[in-house]
């Protein structure tokens, strides 16, 4: 049965079982491999994508649940990989192995959308579902603050 959804701004139709997790639709049907498989059980956050702007764990989200919805993955976060979070990640050399970082960035992007100036505690709470096995948390936290700054600065510039 064909399931229609919107991925990174493009309408797509996939002919897969309704219970196939979105993660595997993205990775193996749509060839978008930026979203990562870590645990398959919603425990590590490596597979985080946005469903209508809200972060979800794609490894435990059946594709049928996103029929007709908009999904954004790391590949679609910004036009030229220049989202303030992506810039800040480069500035602080955040990743080690980097495998979790797409999920970290997607969770952080959703946080900044609704809270443009999060505190440490708010960041910690939002990021709790994202495991970094290499332990880059202190840099992730710093980079989120930096991205918030960059976003505010860009906004101020636009308004001036």
């Amino acid at each position: 049965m064909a399931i229609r959804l919107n991925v990174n701004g493009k309408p797509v139709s996939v002919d897969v079982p309704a219970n196939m997790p979105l993660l595997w639709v993205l990775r193996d049907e749509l060839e978008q491999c930026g979203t990562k498989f870590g645990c398959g059980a919603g425990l590590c956050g490596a597979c985080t994508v946005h469903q209508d702007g809200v972060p979800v764990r794609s490894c435990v989200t059946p594709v049928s649940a996103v029929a007709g919805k908009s999904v954004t993955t790391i590949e679609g976060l910004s036009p030229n990989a220049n989202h303030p979070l992506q810039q800040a990640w480069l500035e602080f050399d955040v990743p080690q192995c980097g495998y979790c970082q797409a999920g970290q960035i997607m969770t952080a992007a959703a946080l900044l959308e609704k809270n443009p100036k999060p505190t440490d505690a708010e960041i910690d709470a939002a990021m709790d579902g994202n495991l970094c096995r290499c332990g880059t948390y202190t840099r992730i936290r710093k980079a989120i603050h930096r991205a918030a700054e960059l976003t505010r600065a860009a906004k101020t510039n636009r308004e001036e």
Partner: protein
Amino acid sequence: MKSTRRFFLQVSAGATGSLVLGGGIAQAQRPGRPAGPPILPSAFIQIAPTGMVTLTAKNPEMGQGIKTALPMIIADELDLDWKMVTVVQADLNEAKYGSQSAGGSRSTPNNWDLLRRVGAAGRLMLVTAAAEAWSVPVAELSTELGRVHHKASGRSVGYGELAATAATLPAPDLNKVKLKDPKDYKLIGKSLPIVDLPAMVSGKPIYSIDFKLPGMLYATFEKCPVFNGKAVSANLDEIKALPGIKTAFLVEGNGDVSSLASGVAIVASKWWYANEARKKLKVEWNEGPNATHSTAAYNAKAQELFAQKPAFSIRKDGDPEAALAAAAKTVDAKYTFPFISHAQLEPGNCTAKFENGKLELWAPSQTPGRGLQMASQALGLPPADITVHQLRTGGGFGRRLANDYLVEAAWIAKQLPGTPVKLLWNREDDMRHDFYRPGGYQHMRGGVDAAGKLVAWHDHFVSFGEGDKFVSSSNIAPGEFPAQFVPNFGVEATLIPTGVPTGPLRAPRSNSLAWVIHSFIDELAHAAGKDPVQFRLDLLGEPRVVGKGMEAYNAGRMRAVLESVAERSGWGKRKLPKGRGMGVGFHYSHSGYFAEVAEVSVDAQNRVKVHKVWAVGDVGSQIIHPSSAANQVEGAIIDGLSELMNQEITIAKGRTVQSNYHQHQAVRMKQAPPEIDVHFIKSDNPPTGLGEPPLPPLLPAVSNAIFAACGKRVRTLPLVKEGFRWA
């Protein structure tokens, strides 16, 4: 040896028109290495006519940053403009590149000399080409940012224009080539843009799991839940009829779980179908003799063995028993640490293609050379018929020193000639079929004299193995600290046989031993009425090298990091609120000296908060990439916290109980210390690796801080078993 051969340039090579710098160099050009074929600069350096340079990264990249650091070493000696450099990952070819592995924090020390010489040889060839073109002496020329300059005449020329001529010149001898004075380094010591970082943050398919080939199928491999059990039969016909399934078959295995375990392979058009089919899979297993093993039985056996005489001696200096009897104060304590899993985030996987008798592998291995040999043996193929491509991997931590995923993929692909197959484990496979950090039990006895000096030490180490043969990564070295620093010193051991596969986990042995040793030293410091840092300084004594060869221990380097971390943390100088304490630990491993201090609070409900950790390390004269280096230390500290608080693998009925991250928990952001202070002391020693040595001191530093904060001495890991949890 004199160089007699001539360079030849592969001008025609490559559709990009790149020139390959280098060519034949005389024999005996593997500096510091066993004899083998010569290593050529052309293996590592390609210069295009435009001046763009491609450098080859030889070793596996798993997040330790070696894909950036090793090319930086070449680039500095070659005086390149890093903006003109592209880094490519080498395929496995140890004849061409030298040893290619990532383990034991050896990538930097093993390549520091070689790659500087490769860069310097390349530079000499380019400079010589310019000297000949301009008819000036080489000595009058300098290089900078990919150009050769002749100051006297004001002339300069880009490397791209020189490469063709350079390659026709006599070969420099790598052993004789002149290296830069370290004060002239321009790239080494700078936090240059990390290779692959833009690809990582934009979701490019750069990992092993992302690699795809046209027509590729996907496989899962269900192994016997009991280690080394065998698949007898399975409902293969039912499985083959399920959606998306192409085939399914039994794999007999070869009796070695580090090579090819027995199990059931399911191959599908897409991985999810293969994984989903496992829900319907029914296998009859012959579980074999390991089915009776359990953590509970190991624990009971250890207590029984503690009551008996140790089975064998590992080291004895002086008379520990007499010294204990004569000591002013003694401490007697039993420590226990568990098996733990690597739990690297990217599950085991490998892509394989078998066609016309030849095998091609795309693998995330830390030891691809060993992987090739193992595939060769398991499949009965000549090594020359196997190609291994190295792919970036989502974490190693020692798990990918083993090559079981590689051999499994190769075996499955061999059953489907011409069809590429990607084997991918699910998380449960990965956690339940690891080569675990072995647990252990240590009965420690120590004594101090009336002056508070440590005079007696005895350790009865109950570990795993047969007779006096330890299983992998479960042993204690005879020179392990504080051996050589205590006059009456004994380590004896008794081994419990185990069927549980064990292997190196980041800072193998050290990751558990440092916790026991420095927790116990802390107990002795308190018994002696001494400050824990001062007690350790007294134990180390005067700056000097103690012991020889493998046992050489530089007390001066350790004193320096310990004194520095005490100063940076304000040790003994700050008044801490009630319920808050500081703890210290140090450890020498993998050629690195590290001391760490943790500041911790513990509340009335035993909730632990690590406020700050200070780490000071000495890994030699150069920190190649300071930002990556600090990242490794920060990560090791957080990794250590995970091991300390939560992680434990238990065995019941011969199988691993834990299956996923909810049962083998790693630290989350809110539990990570808000601040980590990392400092390096640059000593006059060759640069050594950083993946491992920062981890071991963290565990005792936090354990000892918990004692300082609340008076509870932790002797069993993980801390959750002692009633602690994160705040």
